[in-house]
């Protein structure tokens, strides 16, 4: 399951492209949809790759997108130790 997800406020987007460009795992792409101002907002094309790092949120000049971490399933102590090794 993805570590994170994004929320997009479609109507605020001005399609500057920052979020698409600077997402480290290329989760986003500009969609072919329009908002009411005629801009193409981004949409998620690789949801499983989202880490919730919120770089998109930091870049967005229009406050139209942000990322957040999803609560992860608890790992058992034994399994964690095994992974660390």
């Amino acid at each position: 399951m993805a570590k994170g997800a994004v929320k997009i406020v479609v109507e605020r987007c001005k399609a500057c492209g920052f979020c698409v460009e600077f997402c480290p795992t290329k989760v986003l792409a500009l969609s072919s949809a329009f908002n009411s101002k005629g801009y193409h907002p981004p949409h998620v094309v690789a949801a499983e790759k989202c880490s919730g790092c919120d770089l998109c949120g930091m870049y967005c000049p229009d406050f139209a997108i942000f990322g957040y971490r999803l609560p992860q399933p608890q790992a058992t102590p034994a399994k964690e130790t095994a992974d660390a090794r």
Partner: protein
Amino acid sequence: MSSEIRNPVEPFLRMDRMPHIWCPGCGIGTTVNCFTRALIESKVDLENVAIVSGIGCTGRVAGYVKLDSFHTTHGRAIPFATGLKLANPKLNVVVYSGDGDLSAIGGNHLIHAARRNIDLKVICVNNLIYAMTGGQTAPTTPNDAITSTAPYGSYEPAFNLPHLVEAAGAVYVARWTTYHVRQLARSMQEAFAKKGFCFIEVLSPCPTLYQRRNKLGDGLETMKYYKEKSKVRNGAPTSELGLSMQGEIIVGKFVDRDRPDYRELMRHRLAETLGERYVECEELVCS
């Protein structure tokens, strides 16, 4: 559940004034994100943060941020902020303004506040132009750039702001671009915690005027230029930080020094000479 999760920036915005007036691809909103992250991380008491801006596109930040905010006159955010800070030293006073406002009409106040080491955090969004008024030459406009008042290309040498402010006495000087969001937020956080005159320059696109008139692409193109041509050189001599059109951009933290701030200097002198007669004021609140 996802409907409960809010953009971390929203509690800091006057949402009843959204959407803002900045253009597509303008970087000012990006700096506001960094600002809010810095406020969150530094755990400052928001009731004691005041933001003062001047006139210009960046000057509009004060109106959009949900703090005690003052949209003052062109170039005079710093002296207003000086009076505000001296009257209530508990306030963390941030000056958020543009390159034209701070270094042209506001230039005199910039250097004197730095000289005095007034405890202010100055965030200078530098889009190399006077944007709000339609794209005129600023003291930071690089040589050769076309502006509405330099239709044949600017032939004036441009300010090297970090150098200027360091020479004037600032105790914290950094430069980032709107590409360097994490570093910018961190610098802002450091500035909030530091006593004295702190100056952070942020290079930002003005796609509508600076970039367009000079055929330099849109906001995204500019951000890619920042990414490609920026070089992080923390501690570099500020004399080497000059900018040229589409040239290398040296970013980083250049000055982080300690010297007594204005209030400390004042207190020291007056206590020393007046002894018991000196009445220190914490806040100048009249009844």
